[in-house]
C-alpha cells in the first residue's frame, strides 16, 4: 500500500509545477511592468526623495526596488489565480481514476489533497516573499531609508507580548481559513456529485446544469446557516467568550474554526468514500 | 498455431505432440520443450499445456524427471502403438470422407491403386 508520505510528496510535486509556472509568469509580467514604468518615468529613477532629502543611489538598486514592488503588487493577482486553479486541480484529482486507483484509504487521500493544495499555496507566497525581500533589500544601503525604518521600528516597540500572541493567533486563524476554503470547495463539489449519482440520466444537459447550480446554492446557504448556528452555540455555552477578553475570544474563534474544519473534512471523507466515484476512463 | 475452438485445446495439444513424436521431430528419450516455451510457441495458456502433458504422462508417452522437465518415453513399443493410432485415425477419416463422396469401401483399394499409379506416371 502507498504511504501517506509518498502520496503527499507526489501530489505536492504535481501542484508545485503549477506554482512555478505561475511564479514565472508573474515574474515576467513584473519585469514588463518594471520596464514600462522605468521608461515612462520622468526624471532619474536613482534619485529618491525621502522626507525632503534627496538621495542618490545607483540605478541597479532602484530598478530592483521597482521590480520588487511590481512583484508585490502582482502577487495579489497571482495568488488569487492560483487559489482558483489549485481548487479546481483538487477536485480534478478527487475524480480522476488514475489517482483513485492508488492503494490508500480515502481519508489519507483527501487529507493529502487538501494538505498539498494548502502547502503549495504557501510555497507560492514564500517564493514571492523571498523575491520581494531580495529585490527590496539593497535599498537599505541608502542611509535615509535605514533611518526611516529605524524610526518606524522604535515606534512599533510599543507592541507588547500580548500583541505577539494576537499575531500568532491571527496566523493560525489564517491557516485554518485557508484549509477551510479547500474543504468547502470540496464539500460543494463532492456533495453535488453525490446527489447527481442518484438523479435519472436521461435528463437534458440544461436540466443537469440547473440541478448543479441549485445544489451549489443550497450548500452555500446550508453552510452559512451552519456557521451562524455553530458560532451562536459556542457563544451560548461559553458565555465568557463574548466578553472583551481578547485572548479567550481569539481562542474561542480558533476552536470554532478548528471544529468547523474537522467537521467539513469528515463530511468530505464520508462523501468521497461512500458516493463519489472516479470518472470512467 | 491455430486451434479449433470447438474441441478442448488440451486434447489438440496432445494430438500435436503425438504427431511431433510420430514424425520423429521429438525422439525417444529426448527432452521436450518446457511448459512455458510450448505455451508461447502454440499461443496457449500454460494451464492447458500442463493438462495435456499430464494426460500424456498418465498414458506413459511422456515421463517426468524431477527438476529436469518432461521426456519422451523410450518404450519403443508404446511409441509404435501411438504412431499406429495416429495412422488409424487418418485412415478412419479418409474412409469416412470417401464414403461421403460416394466411394464404397469395396471399391476403395482399386480407386487408391489407380490414383497412386497416376502419381508415379
Amino acid at each position, binding site marked *: 500500500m*502507498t504511504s501517506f508520505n509518498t502520496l503527499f510528496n507526489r501530489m505536492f510535486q504535481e501542484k508545485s509545477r503549477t506554482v512555478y509556472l505561475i511564479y514565472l509568469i508573474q515574474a515576467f509580467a513584473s519585469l514588463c511592468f518594471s520596464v514600462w514604468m522605468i521608461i515612462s518615468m520622468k526624471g532619474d529613477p536613482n534619485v529618491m526623495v525621502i522626507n525632503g532629502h534627496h538621495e542618490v543611489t545607483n540605478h541597479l538598486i532602484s530598478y530592483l526596488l521597482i521590480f520588487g514592488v511590481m512583484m508585490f503588487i502582482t502577487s495579489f493577482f497571482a495568488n488569487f489565480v492560483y487559489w482558483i486553479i489549485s481548487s479546481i486541480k483538487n477536485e480534478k484529482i478527487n475524480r480522476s481514476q*488514475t489517482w483513485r486507483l492508488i492503494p490508500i484509504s480515502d481519508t489519507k487521500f483527501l487529507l493529502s489533497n487538501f494538505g498539498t493544495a494548502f502547502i503549495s499555496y504557501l510555497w507560492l507566497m514564500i517564493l514571492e516573499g523571498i523575491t520581494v525581500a531580495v529585490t527590496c533589500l539593497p535599498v537599505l544601503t541608502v542611509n535615509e531609508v535605514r533611518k526611516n525604518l529605524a524610526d518606524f521600528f522604535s515606534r512599533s516597540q510599543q507592541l507588547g507580548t500580548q500583541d505577539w500572541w494576537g499575531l500568532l493567533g491571527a496566523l493560525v486563524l489564517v491557516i485554518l481559513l485557508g484549509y477551510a476554503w479547500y474543504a468547502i470547495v470540496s464539500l460543494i463539489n463532492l456533495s453535488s456529485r453525490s446527489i447527481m449519482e442518484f438523479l435519472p440520466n436521461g435528463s437534458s444537459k440544461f436540466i443537469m446544469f440547473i440541478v448543479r447550480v441549485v445544489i451549489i446554492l443550497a450548500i452555500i446557504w446550508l453552510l452559512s446557516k451552519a456557521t451562524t448556528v455553530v458560532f451562536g452555540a459556542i457563544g451560548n455555552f461559553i458565555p465568557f467568550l463574548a466578553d472583551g477578553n481578547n485572548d479567550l475570544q481569539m481562542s474561542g474563534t480558533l476552536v470554532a474554526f478548528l471544529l468547523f474544519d474537522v467537521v467539513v473534512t469528515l463530511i468530505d471523507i464520508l462523501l468521497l468514500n461512500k*458516493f463519489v466515484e472516479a470518472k470512467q476512463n | 498455431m491455430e486451434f*479449433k475452438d*470447438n474441441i478442448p485445446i488440451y486434447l489438440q495439444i496432445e494430438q500435436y505432440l503425438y504427431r511431433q513424436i510420430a514424425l520423429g521431430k521429438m525422439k525417444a528419450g529426448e527432452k521436450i520443450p518446457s511448459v512455458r516455451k510450448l505455451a508461447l510457441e502454440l499461443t496457449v*495458456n500454460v494451464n*492447458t499445456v500442463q493438462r495435456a502433458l499430464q494426460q500424456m504422462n498418465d498414458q506413459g508417452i511422456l515421463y517426468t524427471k524431477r527438476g529436469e522437465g518432461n521426456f519422451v518415453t523410450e518404450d519403443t513399443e508404446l511409441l509404435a502403438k501411438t504412431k499406429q493410432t495416429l495412422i488409424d485415425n487418418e485412415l478412419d477419416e479418409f474412409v469416412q470422407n470417401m464414403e461421403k463422396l460416394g466411394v464404397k469401401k469395396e471399391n476403395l483399394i482399386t480407386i487408391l491403386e489407380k490414383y497412386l499409379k497416376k502419381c508415379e506416371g
Partner: protein
Amino acid sequence: MNDLLTVKDLTYRKNQKTILKDANLNLSSGKIVALLGENGAGKTTLMRIIAGVAKNYKGEVNLEGTTKEAARKAKLSFTDGLTGFSDSTKIKDVVKFYATIFQDFDENEFDELRKFMKLDNDMKLSQLSRGMREKLIIALTFARKADLYLLDEPFGGIDAMARKKIINSIILWKDEKATILISDHFVNEISSLLDEVVIVKDHTILEHKSADDIRQNHETIEEYYESFYADEDDE
C-alpha cells in the same frame, strides 16, 4: 482451492437504473478468464467495483481475504486510461509516477514490455496513436506484480498482428499464480488462451464455465456466447 476473488450478491444502481443485481462470481488463482457481454451489460462496472473506483453498491467484494478498498487496490492492477496525466506528459514520467506510487511496480519489467511494444520513453502521451496508447496501458498494467489483473477492453484500437504479439507477451509475463480477467469483444484471438468464461447478461452474472467444458460440447466459445442471444433474434 482457495478462491482469489469472491463477489457475493452484488447489486449496483446508478442514476436510478439497475446495472447489476445479485451478481455472484468466484475466481481462483492462476486462471485466464474472459468477461463477455454486450456493450452496457455491466462488464466495466463490475471491474470498477472490484477495483474500488465505483461506489455505493450492495453486497461483498473479497480479494484474497480482504474487503477493504485500499487493500484490494494494492493487490490488483486495472487498465487505467491515464486521464490523470496531461497530454504533454512523457512516457518516462508516467512510469516515474507508477514506480513511486506502487511498491510492486517493476521498472525493468516495464522496460522489457515497452521495448516489446516498440514504445519510446521520450514520447508524449499526445503523440501516441490509440493503439500505442493501449499498448502502453497494457505494459503499465503488467509491470505490476499483482494477484489479479483486470483488463477492460484492452485491444480496441490495436491491429490483429499486434494483438497476437501482445497476447504472447501476456503468456510470457504472467505469473503462475496470477489471474487475469479480460473483458473484450475480440473473443476469437484470445479464445485459445482462456481457462474460463464469464457471461454478463440480464444485469447479472449468468454463467461461469470452464472453456474446455464448452469445447467438450463441440461448441466454440463464440458459439456458446451467441447462444445466449439466440432467442432474441427470433422475435
